[in-house]
């Protein structure tokens, strides 16, 4: 059974290889990297984007492989020939005696640059390329030749960053998305790349497993887990507030088949979950992968629906009374739908929207049910929590759905929240191998004779709490 599942999903991987990995297409999500600056865009034929105060179209990138570098020339992308960069880098190099120079005769004066701001602007308007402009700046700098070789290099680099709009288009990956979000870390609860890396390894995330992820980091953790599952297995996103915010997941541009492995379940329904006894407990080598197990459990559960699902079903069936029947199950998402409906007054449109809304509601109820069935089997292979919420109640509510001898990984920006988690879980029992940790990441500038740690570093990437679950019954009785 595993092998058939794998061969099916192997096709997904191959599809990914062919559709996503190699070349940039219309509608592709792309990361545009210019120096340290990374931004995400969706390629749309004929549409201009803004970056660094410049308007340009990405049409020129279509058909090129990811990892291609382009110059922005008159609002379009032009592929940079390989190796053309090296020439400019070495332009200002003089080998004789540069070591002997120092800055004792250099003064910080505006008159050091003979070109005025207006003249520079005019050159730009005349269509002088960025690299040519940098050459002009060097020629007209009174101090450039007096600088040391290192200082010249730095000058060129600085001017190029300002005047040359050269960018590389990359395929979105967890590594690059982390780099992108590091500039606005508050969006992802200050989760840093090395911390996320620890979460994925300590969670033993690999193909074929079922993972529950509580994520208020724009779905970055959900996306990272999905990337590691590669279409094999399931991810359940337990979301806070009314609609799952998964901006980051969209950025990955996962193929449709892979998106089918993503389930959603609202956190405010977690207390309605009840652990279901597995229908057959045999030495099934791959319980978590077995399609049959899923079907069996869901069939069994159809016979004993619980209260909240009844409410759900009622909402779907009763199309006239929807607004009256709204309970706390119904979240703000519906109100949003409602609002959009309210705007359309015409009768025909109304019925159309009504059926659309009904379809959407049905769709969501089905999604919830699928996620519920997965959770209630109690065979989760990993629980990951990365949120701005206090983690202790979430862990305590969900740990019973995790299979024995599996990792749970909890992230928080604050150590104290995880300390509470640790103390509380130790009291409750049922886990071992508790660990509260923090990683420290230092980057280096490596250059001949100038190697040193980077001047700026991240002060915190947050904290992690990890533990391993135990077999339930044996713990209770002994």
């Amino acid at each position: 059974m595993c092998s058939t599942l794998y061969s099916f999903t192997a096709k997904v991987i191959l599809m990914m290889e062919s559709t996503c990995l190699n070349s940039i297409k219309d509608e592709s999500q792309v990361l545009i990297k210019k120096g340290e600056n990374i931004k995400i865009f969706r390629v749309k034929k004929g549409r201009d984007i803004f970056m660094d105060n410049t308007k340009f179209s990405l049409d020129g990138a279509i058909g090129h492989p990811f990892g291609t570098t382009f110059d922005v020339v008159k609002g379009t992308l032009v592929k940079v020939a390989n190796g053309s960069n090296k020439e400019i880098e070495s332009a200002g190099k003089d080998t004789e005696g540069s070591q002997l120079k120092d800055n004792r005769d250099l003064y910080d004066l505006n008159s050091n640059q003979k070109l005025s701001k207006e003249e520079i602007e005019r050159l730009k308007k005349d269509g002088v390329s960025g690299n040519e402009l940098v050459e002009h700046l060097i020629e007209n700098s009174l101090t450039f030749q007096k600088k040391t070789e290192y200082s010249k290099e730095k000058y060129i680099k600085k001017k190029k960053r300002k005047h040359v709009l050269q960018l590389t288009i990359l395929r979105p990956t967890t590594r690059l998305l982390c780099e992108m979000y590091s500039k606005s870390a508050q969006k992802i609860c200050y989760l840093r790349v090395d911390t996320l890396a620890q979460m994925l390894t300590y969670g033993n995330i690999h193909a074929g497993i079922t993972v529950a992820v509580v994520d208020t980091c724009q779905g970055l953790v959900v996306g990272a887990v999905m990337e590691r599952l590669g279409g094999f297995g399931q991810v359940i996103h337990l979301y806070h507030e009314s609609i799952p915010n998964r901006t980051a997941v969209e950025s990955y541009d996962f193929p449709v088949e892979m998106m089918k492995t993503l389930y959603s379940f609202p956190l405010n329904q977690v207390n309605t979950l009840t652990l279901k006894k597995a229908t057959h407990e045999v030495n099934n080598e791959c319980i978590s992968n077995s399609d049959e197990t899923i079907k069996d459990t869901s069939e069994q559960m159809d016979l004993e629906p619980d209260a909240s699902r009844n409410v759900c079903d009622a909402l779907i069936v009763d199309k006239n009374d929807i607004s009256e029947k709204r309970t706390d199950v119904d979240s703000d998402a519906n109100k949003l739908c409602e609002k959009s409906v309210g705007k359309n007054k015409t009768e025909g449109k109304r019925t159309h929207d009504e059926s659309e809304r009904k379809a959407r509601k049905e769709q969501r109820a089905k999604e919830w049910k699928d996620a519920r069935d997965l959770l209630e089997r109690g065979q989760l292979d990993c629980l990951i929590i990365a949120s701005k919420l206090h983690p202790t109640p979430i862990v305590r509510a969900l740990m019973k759905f995790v299979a024995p001898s599996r990792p749970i990984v909890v992230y928080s920006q604050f150590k104290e929240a995880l300390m509470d988690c640790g103390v509380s879980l130790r009291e409750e029992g049922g886990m071992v191998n508790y660990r509260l940790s923090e990683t420290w990441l230092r980057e280096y500038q490596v250059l001949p004779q100038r190697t040193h740690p980077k001047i700026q570093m991240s002060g915190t990437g947050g904290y992690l709490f990890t533990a391993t679950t135990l077999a339930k019954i044996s713990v209770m009785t002994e």
Partner: protein
Amino acid sequence: MNFCKYKEIIEEGDTVILYLGFNNMHAITVKKGETFQTRYGALRHSDLIGIKFGGKVQCPKGYLITLHPTPELWTVNLPHRTQILYTTDISLVTMQLELRPGSVVVESGTGSGSLSHAIIRSIMPVGHLYTFEFHPQRAALAEQEFQNHGISQYVTVAHRDVCSDGFGIENVADAVFLDLPCPWLALPSAKKALKQQGGRLCSFSPCIEQVQKTCEKLTELDFVELSTMECLVRNFDIRTISLPIADLGPHSGEAANNSSRQKAVLLDIGDADKTQNTSNDENQMKVNTRYHQDLIGQKNETSFCFKSGVPPTQMPGHTGFLTFATLYPQ
């Protein structure tokens, strides 16, 4: 057994992690008739067969817990044949090399297989690891280990000195990992091993001089996005700490007035309601102040008690520098 696929019940031939405490674990391969000596007395392997992973097993002087192996637990329990990479670095390598199911990875050297297990976990069931080791016995032992752990279909072990002989494979890899004394010697061949669409490379070196030379060679070979980093982990012990409060002697004169005012402020933070009720009663206030509940701990007459995450007084301060680079499409 299959190391990288969870199973429920322990069978003969399985690798089991015996957990006795956070820093007290052992990896054993279950074999009928054998016994394993623990702190709690002898454990018969046959007692493990049929019980659940994550369950308890009774020994003469106590019980221990049977955990399912993971690459992380293996890393802290494997037989050392060399220095190994630990999970902190392994995590970063996996992330930065962008490993996922389907990735083809080249690794040298194999060493004790700590990283290899983690790589295989991340790239299976459709990826492959080519791992190279110049020490014949280590290569053979690693191969045996992969076999025993049921992951040999995802890995090819080669006994080869990649610095002198190269990797001998071209245009196959998405990622290359080097842990070699002179990584720059293997770089030209590593470049050839990467796919035409490009890929990622990582070199692990303990010394900065090695990093320096590696970066020079990488630049020469048209690798870009060079980035060198160091990652350390710090574990915290959650402890209740009690700090004694100093006896600063009796108050006198103005100091006495000041301190009573200070107490009132403290009380304000901790228990505003009580302050309102008793603010007219000077004596009452003093009594309340004694058992003041602070925001981060508890204060009484003699001590200040709080919970703290205490870092170790000694910890590893350096493992190695990780240098990453990208090769764009050729």
